[in-house]
């Protein structure tokens, strides 16, 4: 695997960022994850993961405009980088290839 590691939750957040391309910011990511995972997710956990994957260079960020809803604070949007995309591809490859090796098992 690549020298950069990606934790499970970090991978989920990165996937979400990629899926929400150019529209991804904290609250949207949180809601998306909660919907997909069908469980409550902590906003602070999302932020920690975002900071980490940004440090690792998988995403980059920019500030958006001010909205009324946010008490005068700007949104911070995240976009996946080429490195991040390659990382997701590699992860997907690995998982897929191992999955394919699973013999047909029946759990009757």
């Amino acid at each position: 695997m690549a020298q950069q590691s990606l934790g499970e939750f970090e991978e989920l957040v990165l996937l979400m960022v990629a899926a929400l391309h150019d529209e991804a910011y904290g609250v949207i990511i949180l809601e998306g994850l909660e919907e997909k995972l069908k469980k409550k997710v902590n906003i602070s956990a999302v932020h920690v993961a975002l900071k980490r994957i940004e440090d690792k260079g998988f995403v980059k960020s920019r500030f958006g405009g001010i909205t009324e809803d946010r008490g005068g604070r700007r949104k911070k949007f995240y976009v996946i980088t080429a490195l991040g995309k390659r990382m997701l591809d590699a992860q997907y490859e690995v998982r897929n290839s191992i999955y394919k090796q699973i013999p047909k098992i029946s759990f009757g």
Partner: protein
Amino acid sequence: MKAGPPKKALQFLRWFCREDYIEEIEGDLTELFNKQYTSSPRLAQSVFVGRVVNYFRPEFLKSLKNSRQPNSYSMYQSYIKIGWRNLLKSKGYSLINISGLAIGLACALAIGLFIQDEYSYDRFHRNARDIYRVVQQQVQAGELYHVASSPGLMGEALKADFPEVLKSCFLGYKRSGVLQQGTITVESSAITMADPGFLKMFDFPLVMGSPDKVFTEPNQIVITDRMAANLFGRDWMADSQLLGKTIIYNRKGGEGTRMDELILAGVVKEPPVNSHIQFEVVLTYDPKADNNDNWLSNNYLTYIQLNHNVNPADLNRKLDGYIDKYRSAANGNFTSPVFYLQPLTDIYLHSDFDFQTDWTKTSNIVYVRVFFAVGMIVLLIAVFNFINLSTARAIRRAKEVGIRKTIGAYRSQLMTQFLAESFLITGISVVLALVLVNIGLPFLNSVASKSLTLPITELPFAMALLLFMVIVSLMAGFYPSVYLSGFQPTKVLKGVFDIRSGRRFRQILVVTQFTFTVILVAGSIIISKQLSFLRDKDLGFDKSQLLYVQTDNLSKERAQLLKSDLQKQSAIMGAASTSNSLIDVINSTVGFEWEGKLPEDKFLITRLNVDPWYLSTTGMKLISGRNFNPEMPTDTTAYIINESAARRMGWTPVEALEKSFTLHGVKGLIIGVVGDFHFRPMTAAIEPLVFSYMPSRYYSGIMVKAGPNRVKESITLIEELYKKYDPVISAHFNFVDQKLENQYQSEQRTGKVVFFFSLLAIFVACLGLYGLATFNAERRTKEIGVRKVMGASVINVGALLSRDFIYLILLSIIIASPVGYLLMRNWLEGFVYRIELDWRLFLAAGSLPLVAAILTVFHQAVAAARMDPVKALRSE
């Protein structure tokens, strides 16, 4: 209107959260809050708070470097920088300040280490707080005495009678003897006896053996690891068969030697230095030994451990009259002693027991207090130096203060600045002080006979040091910072500066410094005078070249033979049997009658069993009657009393002769009265004493008087002759004059410490004075110039500059004398025989600091006066 998220939580978030994250995080949180607020406002509020708290972790925290108030942080940096520059700018004053403070701190630190060590005694036992020693007050012949030992049945009875007593144990008194193992013999003078409870109560860990099995059989012996190495060699640990080996114990005792075969049951770790119980060998307690299984004799120390939550005062109350229940059954004739509990942790510092019943290692709280006071005084003097120099030199900082205030500095900021400078100086001094202490520790250790180390790497010490540093900085820096920050900018910037301001305060501090110094000097002079008085005082016998040879290892017959052998030697002027070494004789009794005694009349008389050669050997003088005569068999029931005894019984020395006297049932006549002589330390008055000559009774040793200049020869003779009668153990003897001097060891030690510290105090105080004098001379440069031009001589000017200081020091001497007089009288009252306090002593004590101060100030004044007036007057 839409409600925002909880304000407090938001403030908190903004306070701790990194600046580069706050935008995003606060925004997201607010958005979430608003979404939830529409459905359930209350829940939204608490969820928001919960979320904020969630962010309180390292990833989101502001780094400490970019603190919330970057401004004040860099201000602190600037304070330190300015402080440092000021230090360098006036190197002389900095040197005086720092070296004085370093000396003061070093004294305080060293004394602190000493006191900490004194207070550390016995605290290493896990249950130290619950352990007590059972001690008693006895009334004998109308006098109150404190006794550390207690009856042998005490411990068990207390445990049975009071549920609050958890454990009890005994400890026998200290004796000496010889252990034999194979061909190896080792002498020990720290042999005691204990019962099985001993090792269960106290934390003296067994290196070998189990606490449940030791002291259970009467012939068991436990030795320390050091003793094991002596007896079994260095590799004793490797011997798996060590326990169960036989050790032969030669018991020293009144009735000659006795050999016991003992089984080694355990090896215990040597007791730590800071334990009041010190031993090398512990034998199993035998209740029959020393006649200890009764309620009448007080031979052993009893310790009890209480349940954790018991208040010892309650038990103390119950102990009042407790013994009557047992003793009335045994013997009703005695006044009941009152028993009470002495906490284990008090034993080392707070033990003052009579009749030498406490053989354990003890110190004296009085000397701890004296040392504390002395250390604090030196520190205080140094702190006063700092205060004096900072305020005296305020004029140099006045402009700075004015400018800072004009620019907008608050007074509190200026105070912080000056405090920071005092921290800086104290910090440097602390480092220097640590170096000084490190250098001085060996000296302190040798004076205090301790093995103190500087535990610089230990956290509690480092914390204490830091706290100490903060306190000293505040003490030294607080007043100057208030004083300096109080200047009014309009005045100081105009150059209007009242030179006299704070002068009175400085004078008071100088007087205080020198008052303390004079007291210290007077103290050390008086202590050394009293000690030399004790050394030179006529004791009533001739202590020079007098030796005491122990014979309690020898049988009675052999001891007699040794004595007559010694008497035959030409190098030896006399040898006599005695029951005591003449050092602090404690063997008193009320069991005697005399002719014409009233039934209620009782007092304690000290008894010594000697022989007819005793008086000539020791050089005691008969004032009436005759000596014992070995040719007269009736003299073995005759008595010689001392002058005090005769007076106490109502006779003149001549009247006492031929009166009948009965000691412990042996009736005889008084044949002589001997002049009073000191057989106890000078802290006690000479009490009644009686000599008997009963060769069949106990003798502990032989007094030997060596011929003039033949001491060495005599020692060789004693060693050789002794070997004839005891090939195994070598002779034990000591010089009486040395032993007598050792009685005042703690006084000598205190004298040395006070003397040393008073020198330091003079030095530090003069250092400060030097600084003040220099400053004064600098300030008056012009005046001096003018005076010189007008024709003043160097001496005139020198006197002018010194005069003020000399007055201050004279005032200090006047204040110090009565204070010192009261303090030292208090100390001297502990001695029955003492020097008279003389006002001239204080004059002498005052003259030392006075001369030092005059030299300091005058030297500086003359230097100033020597300056070329042209230069002084031209400087503008």
